[in-house]
């Protein structure tokens, strides 16, 4: 019964996301809605998490009623937007697409058997995420007795509430704090991420590039291992990766809706972990560097993300919450940083080795590097420049954290290195099909320029 309730809550989030697609401009007709419906589930998860986490700050609990209202409102507005537009046309799936979807479904079902029996026994999973999710479920909001409580400082109180809010939605839907079924939600994050990438990229890249990439993501041992821990790193990475791919598509096509999807996903990423804000800042830096002539649209997108994050930052300021692991303001503590500058290169190399570890991530990052180089050689500038800037800035930013932290760096690096890089790896994976398709097209027609100008 609880499984049904969990799935029903996710079905409502899917409905909310499908209704959101016309409002974001992703679908301007029923036909486009069907073609891009893969984006619906992830958009619904992100939107529900954003709404629930912000309502949690003002003493409003978000459960069945909230979900039903969000889904109804979104569907009603989306339906109104699409009235009188072209009806969906069912296309016969290609044999490759059909086979890939069947393989992915089989893999996810197999994963599901493991997720259905996993215990919640990893430190960060219960000490940070499930503790906050349960507190939201039990108290109905981000009650400061816990969320700003001195005895709860160990729980990274300054981390935003997107993931705990989704966990709380699940607990409310199930009517219980069920740590076993909670793992299914993490598997559903993977389903949503893969579907979103398919919905986003299917029209732009050949099936031969898209489906192997999605299978490579799903098969990466680190994706399975880390999702099963119920940590936030892979959910963050999946949401961020869809944002990266949407922004990449926007660079090529200049379609406003792609930037809208990227903005939504970047807001979700920034509301998941503090490191998410680093990745989002790096992505915007890459976008500004690659498409500075379109700075107005980017400024609006960045402003929207700041606005979504603002209520949480106000809460953090009101209750004077601090990161217990590091403080970026220590960058200016020359006495502290001066003695630890040697940590930077060590962390940079260590994280780099983690990213190219084939036993964790397969060949995702080596392939990404080859494709960025090939894109540059073929004369492309916008997409590879964006890819280079956000990955390198993210990598440098993560490495800097180990410089400014007051923890002993080697222990801190050892305990986090495998998972903090997940967003860089999956973000890179999400760009692989676009990079390959654009490079291929450019090499066949050197005079061709992408719609976005280059």
């Amino acid at each position: 019964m609880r499984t049904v309730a969990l799935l029903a809550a996710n079905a409502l989030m899917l409905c909310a996301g499908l209704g959101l697609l016309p409002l974001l401009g992703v679908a301007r007709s029923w036909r486009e809605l069907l073609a891009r419906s893969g984006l619906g589930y992830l958009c619904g998860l992100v939107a529900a998490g954003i709404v629930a986490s912000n309502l949690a700050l003002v003493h409003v609990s978000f459960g069945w009623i909230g979900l039903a209202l969000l889904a109804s409102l979104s569907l009603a507005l989306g339906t109104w937007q699409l009235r009188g537009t072209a009806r969906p046309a069912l296309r016969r799936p290609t044999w490759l697409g059909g086979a890939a979807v069947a393989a992915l479904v089989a893999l996810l079902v197999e994963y599901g058997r493991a997720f259905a029996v996993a215990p919640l026994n990893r430190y960060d999973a219960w000490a940070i995420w499930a503790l906050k999710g349960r507190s939201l479920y039990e108290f109905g909001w981000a009650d400061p007795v816990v969320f700003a409580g001195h005895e709860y400082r160990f729980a990274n109180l300054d981390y935003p509430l997107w993931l705990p809010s989704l966990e709380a939605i699940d607990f409310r839907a199930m009517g219980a704090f069920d740590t076993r079924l909670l793992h299914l939600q993490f598997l559903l994050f993977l389903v949503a991420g893969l579907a979103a990438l398919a919905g986003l990229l299917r029209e732009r890249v050949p099936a031969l590039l898209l489906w192997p990439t999605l299978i490579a993501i799903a098969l990466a041992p680190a994706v399975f291992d880390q999702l099963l821990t119920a940590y936030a790193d892979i959910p963050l990475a999946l949401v961020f990766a869809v944002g990266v791919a949407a922004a990449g598509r926007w660079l090529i096509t200049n379609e406003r809706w792609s930037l809208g999807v990227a903005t939504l996903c970047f807001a979700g990423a920034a509301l998941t972990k503090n490191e998410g804000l680093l990745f989002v800042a790096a992505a915007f830096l890459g976008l500004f560097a690659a498409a500075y002539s379109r700075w107005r649209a980017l400024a609006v997108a960045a402003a929207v993300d700041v606005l979504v994050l603002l209520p949480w930052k106000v809460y953090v300021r009101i209750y004077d919450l601090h990161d217990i692991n590091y403080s970026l303001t220590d960058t200016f503590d020359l006495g502290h940083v001066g003695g630890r500058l040697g940590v930077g290169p060590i962390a940079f190399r260590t994280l780099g080795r983690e990213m190219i570890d084939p036993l964790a991530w397969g060949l995702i990052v080596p392939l990404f590097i080859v494709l960025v180089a090939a894109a540059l050689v073929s004369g492309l500038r916008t997409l590879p420049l964006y890819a280079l800037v956000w990955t390198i800035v993210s990598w440098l930013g993560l490495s800097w954290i180990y410089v400014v932290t007051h923890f002993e760096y080697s222990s801190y690096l050892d305990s986090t290195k495998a998972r903090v890089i997940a967003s860089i790896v999956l973000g890179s994976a999400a760009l692989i099909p676009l990079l390959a398709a654009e490079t291929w097209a450019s090499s066949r027609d050197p005079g061709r320029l992408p719609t976005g100008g280059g």
Partner: protein
Amino acid sequence: VLPRVEDGIARDSQLTDVQRRQAAAVRLKLDPRPFDTFRATLRPRERYAVDVPPGEQGPFITKGEVVRAYSAFVFLPAIQVRTADRVFRYRFR
């Protein structure tokens, strides 16, 4: 990948409900029984404090701080505070 999946299923599917509830404590090498006993006496939102020696120092926090963190999680919706009439006492063996 799939052998890892099968290993996980084989290992975790044998857990009873009690073992699954106590899995985090067992992983931390804590005795779960005192936590279960104290939890049964707590009411929602009741304030309690934790009395535990610092214990050995781990890479980031002491064993005592781990017990405080685990108590905060497992005793929800009761609320951990620094001092209270209700006190959970835990001693390392």
